[in-house]
């Protein structure tokens, strides 16, 4: 499509028009076609969401618009019109005025976008001086105004602070303030909340919406999260392999996605309603972009493909702002209802496989010349957990709540400071040396980042066999090799993978290798530390399917550490919610997700964006950030942020009370209503 999009459906004139944009990376004889002919239009006051999986070129569009491409990147064709002016024809000097002036940009990582040796106020003032001549002389009042606008409390004091004194959410607000300094007409936000926790994400997204209402700027939001799309978008563009495959208004898009890829994406999303079956997956992988595509890019992975798809590249159907790139009409696209294997959820047995009681993991804070211990970071502070065979317990919480530390302390990868961990009636915390080493084959761990969890210098065969060698399993070298090949087959990788290095595989495949490695020693329990959070939706579905299948087959017990509530709803049998080193609520998954009692659980669940624009949730907004585990607040740890805190909450930590069978919560408000049936099962109610 090369026609100019006409503003036919919206009374607002387009602010930004992109036509036929093509961006290439790398060598000119064999370029990576990162963006391959993209047309889009942004109108005043509208939020256009670009959604797609990693590597589809969505960030490259943003960088092309800003003309901030990485070395080796170049725009080879296309036009970018900002209010009628062509940005690509501007000399670099003039472009510098546009960046941060009429186009603002926020990046994913607020931690690295700010200069650590300058006060945040000065960094905002720099942008003000450059792009706001009115306030160039004395910028401070304007900076304070901007800080107020982005909702930073106490701005007069905050402007003189350094980035490290601010939390992640606050830093992202400062970044937004910098972007707003030039009073932009277009704000490009590249995954602005991906690095933030859900409760903070909710705050930032709401802020962006408010700012848009005030200033009428157009926002181009780039994300991979369909929930965020539903929550904030007016229009949506789906990217696949460097092209837009579908553009639509958000509501119709969620009601009826048209392109086969969009449809499959929705089917791959985990959720509570899919609990009893496997997830639909998109077979194959995104094709590499260093080749020309004579046909549809999705062809190899498309179930609806017909003869016509193999003849010509797909045309754009519909109007430029509302259509999709496919040969087939909407009613011609038939996606088989997949035959998904059933999933059964094992019943709870009497004897837990692993049992933690009052588990503590303190890290000493040392100061001074003599390195004296002046305090402790209480990363895990009295944790009670029971893991049952063939069942999944999800440990949920925001970053910094100690969930990963808890997982490692359970497996004795970090030696706990106190408490007990029993595995099959054997006390682990006092076990050392050879006996512990032998027992390690029974419990394994899968890490979040498959890139760093494998030694880049080792062959896949050696990686998978490492545990077997260490545990003296698998017999001779040839036997071991056979077994490794069988394991790879079990996780769906070809035998050829044996003689290759991890970097030759994609993220999802690497996570499979990591799973095969853990399985190699035939464990009974696996701690999964955010195994899918670094993966795209379609790949996540494959890994979740695999984990579920393996659980059924091998009767594995999982401790699933995550912050992704949708995954929890799909996979877990029980949920434990952690806040500041302690479990605040625990219970069966259906109870926790639907009838949570603890205010923190309620807030956490309400902050999760739901991929359904019709779903109007009321976000329980939490103020502020999680306090430091080095210095937890007196009384209930949550009282400073709790909307329902009472006097009592500030005095003593509430006891854990059992509400129903297996449903427990630590909150004064809960125990109050339950006074009669309170059965105090834990005595950790001491005040700090």
């Amino acid at each position, binding site marked *: 499509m090369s026609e100019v999009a006409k503003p036919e459906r919206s009374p607002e004139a387009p602010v930004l028009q992109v036509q036929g944009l093509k961006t290439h990376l790398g060598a000119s004889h064999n370029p990576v076609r990162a963006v391959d002919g993209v047309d889009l239009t942004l109108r005043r006051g509208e939020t256009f969401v670009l959604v797609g999986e990693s590597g589809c070129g969505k960030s490259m569009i943003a960088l092309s618009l800003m003309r901030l491409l990485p070395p080796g990147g170049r725009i080879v064709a296309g036009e970018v019109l900002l209010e009628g002016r062509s940005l690509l024809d501007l000399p670099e000097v003039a472009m510098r005025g546009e960046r941060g002036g009429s186009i603002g940009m926020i990046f994913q990582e607020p931690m690295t976008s700010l200069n650590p040796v300058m006060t945040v106020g000065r960094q905002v003032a720099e942008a003000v001086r450059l792009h706001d001549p009115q306030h160039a002389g004395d910028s401070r009042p304007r900076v304070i105004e901007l800080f107020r606008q982005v909702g930073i409390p106490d701005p007069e004091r905050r402007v003189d602070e350094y980035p490290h004194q601010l939390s992640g959410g606050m830093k992202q607000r400062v970044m937004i303030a910098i972007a707003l300094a030039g009073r932009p007409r277009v704000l490009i936000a590249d995954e602005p909340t991906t690095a933030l926790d859900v409760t903070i994400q909710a705050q930032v997204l709401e802020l962006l919406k408010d700012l848009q209402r005030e200033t009428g700027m157009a926002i181009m939001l780039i994300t991979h999260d369909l929930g965020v799309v539903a929550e904030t978008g007016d229009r949506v563009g789906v990217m696949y392999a460097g092209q837009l495959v579908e553009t639509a208004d958000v509501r119709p898009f969620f009601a009826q996605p048209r392109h086969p890829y969009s449809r499959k994406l929705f089917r791959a999303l985990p959720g509570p309603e899919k609990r009893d079956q496997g997830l639909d997956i998109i077979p194959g992988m995104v094709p590499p972009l260093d080749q020309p595509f004579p046909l549809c890019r999705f062809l190899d992975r498309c179930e609806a493909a017909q003869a016509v798809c193999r003849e010509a590249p797909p045309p754009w159907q519909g109007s430029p702002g509302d259509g999709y790139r496919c040969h087939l009409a909407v009613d011609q696209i038939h996606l088989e209802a997949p035959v998904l294997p059933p999933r059964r959820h094992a019943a709870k047995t009497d004897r837990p496989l692993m049992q933690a009681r009052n588990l503590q993991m303190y890290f000493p804070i040392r100061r001074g010349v003599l390195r004296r211990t002046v305090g402790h970071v209480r990363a895990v502070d009295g944790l009670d957990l029971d893991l049952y065979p063939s069942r999944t317990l999800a440990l949920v919480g925001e970053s910094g709540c100690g969930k990963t530390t808890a997982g490692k302390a359970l497996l004795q990868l970090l030696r706990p400071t106190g408490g007990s961990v029993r595995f099959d009636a054997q006390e682990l915390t006092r076990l050392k040396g050879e006996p512990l080493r032998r027992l390690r084959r029974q419990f394994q*761990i899968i890490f979040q980042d498959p890139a760093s969890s494998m*030694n880049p210098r080792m062959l896949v065969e050696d990686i998978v066999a490492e545990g077997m060698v260490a545990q003296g399993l698998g017999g001779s070298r040839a036997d071991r090799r056979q077994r490794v090949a069988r394991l790879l087959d079990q996780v769906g990788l070809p035998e050829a993978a044996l003689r290759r*290095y991890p970097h030759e595989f994609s993220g999802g495949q690497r996570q499979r290798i990591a799973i095969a490695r853990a399985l190699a020693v035939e464990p009974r329990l696996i701690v999964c530390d955010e195994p899918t959070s670094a993966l795209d939706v379609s790949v996540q579905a494959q890994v979740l399917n695999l984990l579920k299948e393996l659980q059924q087959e091998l009767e594995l017990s999982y401790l699933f550490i995550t912050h992704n509530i949708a995954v929890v709803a799909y996979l877990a049998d029980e949920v434990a919610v952690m806040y500041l080193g302690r479990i605040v609520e625990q219970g069966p998954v259906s109870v926790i997700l639907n009838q949570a009692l603890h205010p923190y659980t309620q807030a956490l669940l309400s902050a999760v964006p739901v991929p359904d624009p019709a779903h109007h949730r009321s976000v329980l907004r939490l103020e502020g950030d999680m306090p430091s585990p080095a210095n937890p607040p007196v009384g209930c740890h949550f009282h400073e942020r709790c909307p329902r805190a009472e006097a009592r909450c500030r005095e003593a930590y509430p006891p854990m009370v059992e509400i129903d069978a297996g449903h427990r919560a630590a909150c004064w408000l809960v125990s109050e209503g339950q006074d009669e049936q309170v059965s105090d099962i834990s005595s950790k109610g001491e005040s700090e």
Partner: protein
Amino acid sequence: MPFQPVILATDALVYLLILLAGISAFYTHRHEHLQMPWRQVGRSRTAMGALVVIGFYVVIGLLDTLHYRPANGTDAQGNPRYATEVMSVLDWAATPLREHREKTYSAPFSTHLYMRETVELPDGSKVRDYPRLKWGGAHLADPDDAAMDIVQRSLLGILVGAGLWLGVLLIFARGRWAVMRGWWQDPAHGPQRTAAWTLLVMLSLVGLSLTLAGAYHVFGTDKVGEDVFYQSLKSIRTGLVIGTLTTLVMLPAAILLGIMAGYFRGWVDDVIQYLYTTLSSVPGVLLIAAAVLMMQIYMSNHQDEFNSLTERADLRLLFLCLILGVTSWTSLCRLLRGETLKLRQLEYVQAAQAFGVGHFTTLMRHILPNVTHIVLIVVVLDFSGLVLAEAVLSYINIGVDPNTNSWGNMINSARLELARDPVVWWSLAAAFVFMFALVLAANLFADVVRDAFDPRLRERS
């Protein structure tokens, strides 16, 4: 046998170094991921050019490492008797240079001595004049023809060089002209073309020295009439030995202590850290001076323990390598400790721990292979620094033995020559040219190696 092979202490270590280099080359060849950075080095024009230059130095250094004692006659039983003097293959190849000794200073390409002497004319009268040299330009009937002769010989030398060059290229093309043309015109062979041009320059220099050095003193002669060009050639081995053996002797300590400190932390880390902070707080020059002076006194008190002067000088060279190693391992150790601290937090190390893999295996399998790039970068970057350090140390008389040829010793003697009037500048110039070419090539090569092996730079490219 007309000779008896001799292996000096440094020779043995050089052979060990070659063996290690061979093993690691073989190992690298078998592992794809290890080859990748080297391929990137191979794609750099600078690196290929520098490598050719370094190659010539290495060949000369190796020729100078093959030591032997020549036979001089037989004893009563008919067994050969060997000279006490230790020679090297380079000495043998450069016999004319070695033997063409003048009386004292002479300027480069000069036919006369640099100093007036009383000369007796055929008629018996005596004048003070600059006498003809015994060897330099001795073949000329009229010394005024020297300029013409030099030009002729230079042209011949360049022709010889170009001929050698074509020969080398044809050997690479397996004797087929068309193959060579095709190879030369292939745009993908840019770095190799740079290497070929550098080779042409180097071979021309070889040709020049073949035709000129026999008849003239191209870099003049020193105070005792020895050829400065020969001295410069002999100094190559000293420079290379200092640059490589020092790192070889310091590597085991630096690697072992560095990764142990980073991996085990706790008291192990404390002990190792105290060790290297203490060592690096002592001024290096002071430590080297003290050690070398002690060695010197020991050697002069135990003259009879050494078979020859060469052996004694060689031991002193080795000792200098050792002491330089002791003072220079701390920085690498510190780097490795930091990297290991980072690596041990990585998830694959924790995964190994979760499997119950032992500490030693973890160190060898997961830590060591992932710090080798740092070791390599440091070794290559340190090389040129060490070559220069030798010059500085010899200049202040705490370097190699005065009998050992080294650029430092040449510069040291040039200190007095520069104070003379007229100035004797060629010793300094020769040392400077040889050292500059080597250090420049090594630095250029090191930069490319660093870029290829540093993962942070690799991600960006």
